[in-house]
């Protein structure tokens, strides 16, 4: 059993901030099958299509029958910890700073043995539940947790290296005026965030839920208009050094595509708010977050974007909006690469139409803002990179994987 972590002490401004080191990053190309699994929180192993043997580590031929047909498939997560060790003097800076570090060898019920990072409550001979996690280098690693829940499970020191748990962290929600933003604030508070900064553009304009927010402890309403470079810079100068998680809930949703609009005025607004807003936020807050990736219990940990699933495949009914989201998705991959040296995760949530005014005429199913908020917190707590919220988003993901052309034709209705 592990003790709950203590709240971080106030930072001593005289001490140098420890710079983030990265665990070993090199992987074979095949091994990125696990990266893909970890990004979505799936547990996948290679299983031979010819003889059904599970294999690990990543291989280019089946060790049982030499077939090259070794797809990554969802695999049973249960295994048994055969042996453990505690590395006390590793040769690598990242692990040396975090030693002692516990690892073990797990025999999976489905066959292979896997070297894994261990949750402190794992014990030899006992069953474990396996996952692939993205470590601070952004690469997948196997992680063994006890099969049953244990007290304070998420406070485990090694587990917390793999996640961006909001507990004791300070979070900026960029758009508090939206339903998603407001629900996210509530969910983050419930998850133990120390402070939630709530960005509000034009704060003199009242908004739904404002009175409730102002009464809560641990909430600070701040002036922020993401589309305004100066507004972002002002806020970053003020709180940039204490934003551990940034949740980009900036949204600008208008129906319509290309031919039924006149001119580019609306498109400019869409780009200003969604794309340039994201860029402004990244330039304002990204550099400090990248520096503070190893800054103790409340180190910077994650950047979250709430994106439309139509970033992945254009929905002509909201065609120009879809394009603005695609631009954001592409930019997010650039930012992910740039935040990586800091060990800061970049998580994208893809949602279908949300149950708000701008999707008024869209028939259900629609995603409740609360479901998105809960998905954000769950993604942070388990360290995911790509999350599909709701049935529409999940269906688009599957159809895109099955046949992108079919999806393109069928979205044109």
């Amino acid at each position, binding site marked *: 059993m592990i003790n709950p972590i203590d709240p971080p002490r106030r930072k001593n401004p005289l001490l140098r901030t420890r710079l983030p080191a990265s665990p070993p990053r090199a992987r074979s190309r095949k091994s990125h099958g696990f990266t893909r699994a970890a990004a979505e929180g799936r547990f996948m192993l290679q299983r031979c299509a010819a003889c059904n043997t599970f294999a690990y580590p990543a291989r280019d031929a089946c060790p049982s029958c030499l077939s090259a047909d070794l797809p990554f498939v969802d695999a049973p997560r249960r295994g048994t910890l055969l*042996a453990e060790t505690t590395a006390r003097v590793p040769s690598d800076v990242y692990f040396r700073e975090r030693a002692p570090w516990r690892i073990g060898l797990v025999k999976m019920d489905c066959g292979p043995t896997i*070297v894994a990072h261990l949750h402190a409550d794992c014990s030899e001979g006992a069953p474990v539940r396996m996952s692939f996690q993205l470590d601070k280098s952004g690469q997948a690693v196997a992680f063994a947790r006890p099969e049953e829940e244990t007290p304070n499970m998420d406070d485990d020191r090694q587990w917390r290296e793999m996640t961006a748990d909001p507990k004791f962290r300070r979070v900026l929600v960029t758009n508090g005026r939206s339903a998603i933003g407001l629900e996210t604030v509530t969910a983050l508070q419930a998850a133990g965030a120390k402070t939630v900064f709530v960005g509000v553009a034009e704060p003199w304009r009242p908004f739904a839920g404002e009175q409730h927010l102002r009464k809560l402890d641990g909430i600070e309403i701040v002036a922020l208009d993401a589309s305004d470079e100066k507004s972002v810079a002002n806020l970053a100068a003020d709180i940039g050094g204490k934003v551990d998680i940034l949740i980009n809930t900036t949204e600008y949703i208008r129906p319509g595509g290309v031919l039924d609009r006149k001119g580019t005025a609306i498109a400019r607004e869409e780009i200003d708010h969604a794309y340039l807003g994201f860029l402004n936020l990244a330039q304002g807050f990204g550099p400090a977050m990248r520096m503070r990736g190893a800054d103790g219990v409340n180190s910077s940990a994650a950047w979250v974007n709430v994106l439309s699933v139509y970033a992945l495949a254009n929905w002509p009914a909201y065609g120009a909006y879809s394009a603005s989201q695609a631009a954001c998705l592409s930019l997010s991959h650039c930012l992910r690469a740039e935040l990586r040296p800091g060990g800061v995760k970049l998580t994208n949530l893809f949602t279908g139409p949300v149950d708000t005014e701008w999707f008024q005429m869209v028939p259900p199913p629609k995603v409740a803002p609360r479901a998105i908020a809960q998905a954000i917190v769950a993604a942070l707590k388990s360290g995911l990179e790509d999350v599909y919220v709701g049935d529409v988003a999940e269906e688009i993901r599957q159809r895109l994987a099955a046949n992108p052309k079919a999806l393109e034709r069928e979205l044109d209705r």
Partner: protein
Amino acid sequence: MTVEKTQRASYDGVVMAVPVTIPYMRYSIESAQWWIGRALSALVAQAGIKSLDIDGLCVSSFTLGNDSGVGLTQHFGLCVRWLDTIPLGGASAIAAVRKAARAVQARDADIVACVAGDANHVDSFRQTLENFSRFNQDAVYPYGAGGANASFALIARNYMRTYGVTREDVGRIAVAQRANALRNPNALMKTPLSIEQYLAARPISDPIHLFDCVMPCAGAEAFLVMRDDTAASLGLPAARVLSTIERHNAFADDPMQLRGGWAKDIGELYAMAGVTPDDLDVVQTYDDYPVITMMQFEDLGFCKKGEGAAFVREHDLTIDGDFPHNTSGGQLSVGQAGAAGAYLGLVEGLRQVLGTAGPTQVKAARLALASGFGMINYDRGLASGAVILAGPAR
């Protein structure tokens, strides 16, 4: 249809000669090429031949950079008609003598120089760890970057728990080897080691503690392989190769390593040599960790599986003891000069049966066994091998 396994042909007429050790250094700014060059130079000088008389070359090293064996022929002015580069880590020396033996038997070559050498710069060891193998890169190194220590810690813990082995049992091997090393002027470890000191050492990766680990260093080892008629014409004292075995990825279905590939092949090893384990005068095991040596005592037939600890308690493993073992001090006390670590035991065993081991000489040693073990690619050591040698007196 099943494929018949056939009996391997004998090593009749194959001998080893000219054991060479280039004394190790903890750190050296010299390259692997420099160390290998020193070893070749010593081979030629001690054999009384010219370097162009060497017509076969077999090289092992972790730190040659972009050089392969063929680049070395030009570097050292050799002109060989048989060439091999063996990247088998701790099994490289056994594999080298096996391949060279067949080359001289088949007259593909007359004199094969088998050489292993490695540099040790301040950062060499970490770089070797990082770039060891694909499985290691993908599935071991990102887990604490503990290198071989962490991987062998898992094996050691499981082995010790399974057979009720204590750290003190394992420590007897390290302590005896240190006693041997005090008689070897080339050993890097020059202070006595007591079992109390062994037990009190700081943990590295539990249950591996400091004196379970080898010290990486720079150095080289070498020997010549030829036919007995060639040795006779050169007037070189030589040892006959009686028998050898080699095995890779044995017992792949064992969930964890409790035995090495030797266990599969020792029947053939002793049968071909026409000897039993009791006949051996001196034994050189591959001691990257003492627990691996204990495993070898079992798998090489000196005791039954699970009785390694009792065997160690019941025998004196020092030079003058009843079971002289790793008489140079082994890698644990001499140092591990990369791939030369694979050669250390075989070269010392050759010296023993030739009667030229000097201060570490076992009286009347005529029959020696040397083993190799290597390549912890993922969760276990994959390569194993052994050689039995007979000196001229037998």
